[in-house]
């Protein structure tokens, strides 16, 4: 595994940014330790010889079924919007993104 480099605060901040989770400074340093410990423990997979092994994404045995191409659902505007934290008419609203 390529990653023996210990996590630093900048990496933790970068991941948190990718994950869109705001972190305070204290949390960054705590997470640096916790995530570093988890990743260090995971490094044991380095011992496993996986040469020639194909990656396995799922153990599901179902094959994707074909069906006729027609609409089976829809016209559920109110149900879809029922849990909106903020809405205007039939739209979700968010803070202004265009000046």
């Amino acid at each position, binding site marked *: 595994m390529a990653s023996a480099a210990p996590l630093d605060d900048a990496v933790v901040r970068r991941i948190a940014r990718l994950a869109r989770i705001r972190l305070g400074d204290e949390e960054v340093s705590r997470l640096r330790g916790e995530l570093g*410990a988890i990743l260090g423990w995971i490094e044991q997979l380095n011992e496993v010889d996986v040469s020639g*092994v194909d990656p396995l994404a799922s153990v599901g045995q179902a094959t994707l079924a074909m069906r006729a191409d027609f609409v089976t659902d829809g016209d559920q505007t109110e149900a879809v919007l029922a849990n909106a934290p903020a809405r205007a008419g039939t739209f979700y609203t968010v803070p202004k993104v265009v000046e």
Partner: protein
Amino acid sequence: MTDTLDFTIAGARNALRAKTISARELTEAHLAAIEALEPSLNAFITVTPETALAAADAADGALARGEGGPLAGIPLAIKDLFCTNGIRTTAGSRILEPFVPPYESTVTRQLLRDGAVFLGKANLDEFAMGSSTTTSAFGPTINPWQRQGSNTQLVPGGSSGGSAAAVASGMALGSTGTDTGGSIRQPASFCGIVGMKPTYGRCSRFGVVAFASSLDQPGPFARTVEDAAILLGSMAGHDPRDSTSMDWPVPDYAAACRRGVKGLRIGVPREYHADGMPAEIERLWQQGLDWLRDAGAEIVDVSLPHTKYGLATYYIVAPAECSSNLARYDGVRFGLRVPAQDLTDLYEETRAAGFGAEVRRRILIGTYVLSAGYYDAYYLKAQKVRALILKDFTDVFGQVDALLTPTAPSAAFGVGENMDDPVKMYLNDVFTVPASIAGVPGISVPAGLDGDGLPLGLQVIGKHFDEETVFAVGQALESAAGFSAKPQIRVGSLR
């Protein structure tokens, strides 16, 4: 009332059909138990007495007409990870605290189709991430069992700890759980009840709040193996809305319980003799093998060579899938929103406020192992080890019909223990994770008590889609073990 709460599902069905009890009486007794025990156990996030009583009355009406499905009038607890139409579904998270689904999960829809009465939504680790039900945003669930001579509060296991505690304490006759790495089997072991994780693809995941989609699988809790089989019969089956659910007929699982184990070959994976495992768990395992041998099974030593890499593989694959699945909680379309001046702040503040510490850790781990430069080293590598773990099981199931192992490396531990170090908590799942990674079915059956008087479970693992053999072996263990101990915190105990 205690007698009413001691029913099995099979026994309650007979009593309801013989009219020695009504569904309303049965439901009222369980609602009263919930009211009495909830202050001690916190097994529920939401209790729904009105809908429960209405469903009970409907079941009584159907039974009076000589109708009524296989679960007519049976009171169940539903893990708060299953979307229930018009009933708040939180996944144990602040971020879903206000969420009321406008649709029903397939598993719960099928249980309702068969006449079940839902008492409420059971507590769980946040987004089913945990082994103790202490990460719930709605407070920890307490195990109804206590160590002899001690009133230390113990965890019920997790993530489906509320579902397990409700059934163990007599608040419900059965319940639903989900199992991603052990979240049904480990709490069943900690609470002295039966918990079954079916084969991946046996039950639909539609309407189950997603954690790790290639691993998540719904399954039942009950106080007997037969009851778990009855519940799975209703929960299982093909669903066009889950492309991973198999279009195969659902066998008669309750009948399979009566098959016996004569002539079956039961494997003992030598890698499950973990370092530091308590001697009493080793002894119980040996006892279980003796029971099966006495019942006519042949015991075979086998090897699952990649067992020790199961957990590390799991803790790459599961967080990777979780970081992707939980990206949907953005404060825009449903759930919590923390108001902010711009959209990025809205996302980041909402997710910081809405997710608890363990969920944040897993999202961040998952984001890291999927990020550019690390994907091959972590995620791809884990997927390759996953292939080797699956091959271990495929090879072994060429030699044996089922495997017997302990369910967990310990009995229930205290609330607050194992919290200092995430990896220590993860080790709870060492015996349950490999079957999840391979997608094979497993059941935990209560088999004995440890020196402190706490329940210990044994796990039976079977071939893909061969839940029937798993139930048959589970039933043989249950019959031999004669497990009849009761937890300290249950309705009778309050008198």
